[in-house]
């Protein structure tokens, strides 16, 4: 790694451990296949195609790789869910619908290192026995779609894709499928519906687990871009070696995307759980802006629960439970879950003391009201109600009762919908009220007698004589 130089001003921090982002912002790097092969690319493909598919799955299982898209489900176990007696074609889908607010890791992989993703996809497709793979890329990445199509054409010209790849007898075609700016397509069953050419209404699980009944009702594996890229590195290092990175049950590296009120926002690839919030925000991101103090952090994309910077948490069970302050929390899947939030997709959004929480809440509720697909009533109606109530809090026409109403709505969405969007829209509201109740109530007034314009109009109409 020592011979790699990065563009000035874009050098990785000393705490970083770059696997996936090795080539991002690298000096003299471009997206062509020759550059990638010169750097030792597609070597793992040759190794992988010589192995048994089962052996690759085992290697990924050993590595303990957990999905990097948000849910953190172990990738190897997901691959193992394909029914053994399956007769239908198997599909592999790369989920590149990176739309969780706060997350921007996949952008750099597909824009700057598309061949790494393609190599990871070929290996994964070989492991699960898929002969057709789709990259579902969001509409907002028009350049990346072109880059990927070009990369696929290059790979095909070198017989790394197509029929009988490198004389191994394995066939694979990868196609790029562009979405159309809908957040819900990041949900795997919604994505599948969208790929089938329908509205992306998520399917209910059970019975529609994609590994059994996915695309065209055939077994389908949906993985995040970052997870698929990790497969290349797992094969290179070996599962036993890879699992040593990071902490137990949270192996490997992951990319943290920091945005918001810090001096140096950006992306950092670190070993999972080896970096605490203090190190991330003060050392790697340069601390708060001048004259400001950190107030709150959303640790894993806007749908994760917000954490206050002065909080402390009880982590661990029984006698082993320890009090850990927010600043000493390591950013891994399990600790953040124990702290009542989640690691999600790695999008860390930081807010300093200049931010009013009602404003933040209003922005988040607007997002979810816009993106609810409308399939389930609690989410469709509830997200819009939450938006309307938070609008009232924001414009100062709310009563203290409204904060309670908002909380009630959130709890009535949580857990009552087909997909996880319900939780995604309710959790930030629940947490925001839980942790900043006083601030929110402070923005309301007993004197406000809420009557919306709509209601006033209605009354005016009713009071007129017929």
């Amino acid at each position, binding site marked *: 790694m020592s011979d790699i130089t990065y563009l000035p001003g874009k050098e990785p921090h000393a705490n970083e451990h770059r696997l996936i982002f090795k080539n991002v912002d690298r000096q003299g790097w471009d997206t062509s296949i020759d550059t990638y092969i010169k750097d030792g690319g597609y070597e793992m493909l040759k190794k992988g195609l010589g192995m048994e598919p089962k052996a690759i799955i085992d290697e990924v299982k050993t590595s303990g790789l957990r999905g990097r898209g948000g849910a953190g489900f172990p990738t190897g176990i997901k691959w193992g869910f394909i029914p053994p007696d399956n007769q239908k074609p198997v599909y592999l889908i790369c989920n590149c619908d*990176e*739309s*969780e*607010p*706060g*997350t*921007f890791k*996949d*952008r750099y992989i597909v824009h700057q290192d598309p061949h790494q993703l393609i190599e990871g996809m070929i290996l994964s497709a070989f492991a699960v026995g898929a002969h*057709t793979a789709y990259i579902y890329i*969001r*509409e*907002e*990445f*028009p*350049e990346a779609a072109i880059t990927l199509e070009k990369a696929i054409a290059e790979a095909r010209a070198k017989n790394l894709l197509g029929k009988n790849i490198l004389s191994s007898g394995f066939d694979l075609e990868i*196609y790029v*499928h*562009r*979405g*159309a*700016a*809908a*957040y819900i397509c990041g949900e795997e069953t919604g994505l599948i519906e*969208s*790929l*089938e*050419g*329908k*509205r*992306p209404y998520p399917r209910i699980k059970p019975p529609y687990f994609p590994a059994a009944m996915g695309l*065209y009702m055939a077994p389908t594996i949906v993985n995040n871009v970052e997870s698929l890229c990790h497969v290349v590195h797992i094969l290179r290092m070996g599962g036993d070696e890879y699992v040593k990175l990071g902490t137990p049950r949270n192996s490997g590296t992951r990319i943290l*995307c*920091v*945005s*918001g*009120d810090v001096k140096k*926002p*950006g*992306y950092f690839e670190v070993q999972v759980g080896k970096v605490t919030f203090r190190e991330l925000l003060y050392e790697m991101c340069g601390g708060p802006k001048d004259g400001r103090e950190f107030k709150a952090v*959303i640790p894993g994309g*806007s749908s994760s629960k917000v954490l206050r910077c002065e909080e402390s948490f009880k982590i661990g069970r029984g006698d082993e439970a320890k009090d850990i302050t927010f600043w000493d929390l390591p950013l891994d899947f399990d600790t953040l879950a124990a702290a009542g939030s989640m690691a999600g997709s790695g*999008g860390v*959004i930081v*807010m300093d003391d200049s*931010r009013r929480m009602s404003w*933040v809440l209003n*922005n*988040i509720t*607007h*997002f979810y009201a*816009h*993106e609810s*697909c409308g399939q389930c009533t609690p989410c469709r109606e509830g997200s819009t109600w939450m938006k309307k109530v938070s609008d009232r809090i924001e414009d100062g026409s709310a009563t203290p009762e409204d904060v309670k109403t908002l909380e009630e709505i959130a709890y009535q969405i949580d857990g009552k919908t087909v997909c996880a969007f319900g939780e995604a829209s309710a959790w930030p509201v629940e947490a925001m009220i839980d942790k900043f109740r006083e601030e929110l109530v402070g923005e309301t007034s007993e004197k406000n007698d809420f009557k919306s314009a709509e209601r006033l109009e209605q009354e005016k*109409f009713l009071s*007129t*004589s*017929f």
Partner: protein
Amino acid sequence: MSTRIVVPRPRVIDRSRLSYIRLRSASPLQVPRPRLIDRSQLIYLTLGKVPQARKINPAHVHYLRPEPSVLEKNILSPETPGTENFEPFAITPQLEQEADRRIAQYPDDQKRSAVLPLLHEVQHRFGFISPESIDWVAQKLDIAPIKVVEVVTFYPGFRQKAPGKLHFRVCRTLSCAMGGSYELMAKICELTGIDRGSADTHKDPISVSPCGKFSVEYAECLASCGTAPVCLVNDDFHEGVLPEKAQELIAQYNG
């Protein structure tokens, strides 16, 4: 001698039969007048000739007037000043060829999957999705036009009216909003003479300038939160566009 206490049975009236009961007890003289007026026309008569008969809330008039249905409204593409920026929809050999290439990417019995790629192709060439193009896509994929319409109306990525020659999509989600994207939007609107005014961000998100050259729209998270605020101008991505850089950004395309 035992006394038998008679408890009167409560009279239960089946309320659904009430009108029938009344009708029966009505005197035979009150025969309903025969209807001479076609009731479907009654509304128009009332509206036109007997203003005192009933007060009508103007907000409800759409129930009474034969207006295009919701579906028709959604299929129709309203004219905007930007319409002249684009060629009207036409089926060209290049379009057919590209469509066939896209359709071939999916299994033979799953042509419907190509609806998104085909609509992207149409939008890329003709600026927006017109009713004629919906018909063409439906025909190409052997599906009912409604199945194309439902897709077009769902996804914010498809627009049914012409944008300006330069279409700005400003990210409004949390990190960008903290970075100043609301101010950026205001600045762009000010510089290009766009009145977003009552733009309903959900149903009709695009506002076009009177000259037809520019249009703006809020986008939800463009996934570059670290370089906020960001925006897309047509297909070009721009990062770190602080409100004060709006002028520079527009000049870049105008020059």
